[in-house]
């Protein structure tokens, strides 16, 4: 046989390798995952056993050498290089020793089971590590390439060489098929487990959504009926006190009148609180009707509604660039209304009111601000700022229920944004709200 023929023969064998001809191990094809993979001993003819032996004799003789060479060449391999580096030397040496012993036991003593078990473990491990099985083919090709020259050296180029090459392929195929099949089956198991996990998570999620929807519906019905049921007695208190004041004033002294007025005011206040709660809870209802909002126009319109209140005051309002934004027009209008109303209210005790309104785009968000030079608030209580019915000022200094900022926060959060505020007592306050750009 010429060298050329030999090379061609070797090449053909390499190609067969890549196509993973399941020749020898078709008989020992396992049928299910680890633990249930049927570990059958390969059925080998006498001739095949001799061929494998011819290969193995040479392999054993030069084992150390090509193990060193293989490690050297695989150092830079994207997957196995990393493995070689990460696994401690003692571990890889021990593992290699075991592998060689099992191989020897199988080939020389016909004790295949331990070797088979070992290869199956390899396949399962590769699957669990998420390694791509294609890479393993590359390694085996490398092995063939190392061993072949040594086989040539020992057996020359005749029939003995061919025999040993056949033996090498036969043995390596057995190993490959075992590892391959174990790998595939384990992969299937892993995928199934993942699917189950995802299914469970989805079911939990769906259940939570159903519960949440039911809870929301309950809340809606509850707040609707509260509005009517609480208002009725309140209305009667207010109505009959008014009648008392109208019809019985001759019988009432100053104190009596004062008491009646306080009762009347209180029931009005309670009515306001109920209205505030209701409109606050409404903010979570319904779909957001998102359109492009011209912030400049909206702010100007909102400001114009406060013209009466600003009448007679020394006021300077600076509106810098306001980017357009995407949002629910009605709700965002409320945000501007509340923030501007606060700025105007809390700065009214200052000789000159200065209000700055602006916005800028930053990191995919539009951050708007409304700054005033008014009474400001104590930053120590900043966490209470956006709470329902929370106030940081006395009602006798500045009237209010404490629902405005809670509304602002609810609306902004629903739009996927955040609220923030900074202040120094008596030096004014800055309120920021952000919304995502799209």
């Amino acid at each position, binding site marked *: 046989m010429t060298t050329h023929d030999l090379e061609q023969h070797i090449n053909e064998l390499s190609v067969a390798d890549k196509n993973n001809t399941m020749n020898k191990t078709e008989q020992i094809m396992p049928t299910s995952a680890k633990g249930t993979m049927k570990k059958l001993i390969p059925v080998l003819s006498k001739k095949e056993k001799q061929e494998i032996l011819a290969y193995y004799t040479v392999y054993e003789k030069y084992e150390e050498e090509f193990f060193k060479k293989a490690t050297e060449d695989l150092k830079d391999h994207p997957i196995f290089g990393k493995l070689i580096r990460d696994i401690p030397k003692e571990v890889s040496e021990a593992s290699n020793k075991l592998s060689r012993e099992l191989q020897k036991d199988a080939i020389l003593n016909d004790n295949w089971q331990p070797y088979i078990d070992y290869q199956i473990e390899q396949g399962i491990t590769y699957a669990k590590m998420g390694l791509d099985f294609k890479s393993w083919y590359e390694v085996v090709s490398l092995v063939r390439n190392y061993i072949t020259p040594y086989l040539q050296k020992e057996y020359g180029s005749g029939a003995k060489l061919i025999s040993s090459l056949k033996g090498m392929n036969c043995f390596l195929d057995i190993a490959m098929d075992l590892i391959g099949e174990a790998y595939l089956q384990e992969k299937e198991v892993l995928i199934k487990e993942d699917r189950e996990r995802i299914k469970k998570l989805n079911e939990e999620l769906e259940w939570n959504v159903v519960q949440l929807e039911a809870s929301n519906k309950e809340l809606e019905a509850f707040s*609707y009926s509260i*509005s*009517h049921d609480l*208002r*009725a007695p309140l*209305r*009667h208190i*207010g*109505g*009959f006190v008014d*009648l008392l004041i109208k019809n019985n004033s001759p019988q009432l002294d100053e104190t009596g009148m004062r008491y009646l007025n306080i009762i009347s005011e209180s029931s009005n206040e309670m009515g306001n609180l109920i*209205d505030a709660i*209701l409109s606050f809870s409404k903010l979570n209802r319904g779909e957001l009707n998102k359109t492009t909002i011209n912030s400049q126009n909206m702010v100007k319109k909102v400001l114009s509604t406060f013209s009466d209140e600003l009448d007679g005051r020394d006021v300077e309002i600076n509106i810098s660039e306001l980017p357009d934004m995407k949002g629910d027009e009605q709700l965002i209008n409320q945000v501007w209304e509340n923030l501007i109303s606060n700025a105007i209210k809390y700065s009214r005790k200052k000789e000159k009111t200065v209000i700055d309104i602006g916005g800028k785009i930053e990191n995919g968000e539009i951050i708007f601000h409304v700054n005033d030079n008014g009474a400001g608030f104590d930053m120590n209580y900043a966490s209470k700022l956006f709470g329902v019915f929370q106030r940081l000022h006395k009602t006798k200094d500045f009237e209010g229920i404490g629902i405005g900022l809670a509304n602002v926060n609810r609306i902004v959060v629903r739009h996927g944004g955040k609220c923030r505020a900074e202040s120094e007592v008596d030096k004014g306050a800055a309120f920021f709200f952000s919304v995502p750009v799209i």
Partner: protein
Amino acid sequence: MNVEVKRILIVDDSPKDVELTIAALAEKNLANEVVVAEDGTEALDYLYKRGKFVNETGNPAVILLDIKMPKMDGIEVLRHIRSDPKFKFIPVIMLTSSNEEKDLVESYKLGANSYVVKPVDIVQFLDAIKVLGQYWVVINQPPPINNQ
């Protein structure tokens, strides 16, 4: 000109609310001819002159109709009234305890003429009547000068 006052039908299940409404109407001497129905069924009884109203005559000039009532609610009463040609044109003012949009839309959809939030403030009531153009149908003759 002497315009005879016509009847005002109040349909409301809350006696306290009814008392407040009548007190408000009394402020302008409109309470002389007020008929009270305590729920939807009684309201229809009055219109059809049956039940406890079997001896009554004439249609009301205006109906003040509460929305939230047990059994037949105000919206249903309105539906009945508007579907009968005899009563279709009687002005109806819905009385409600809040500005809840839902109710508002419903009442206007079925042909209510106006909407007043309780307690009925006399000014509110008169405005509603004016808007309806029924002012002169309902209003009493002006009180004699020595009663002012």
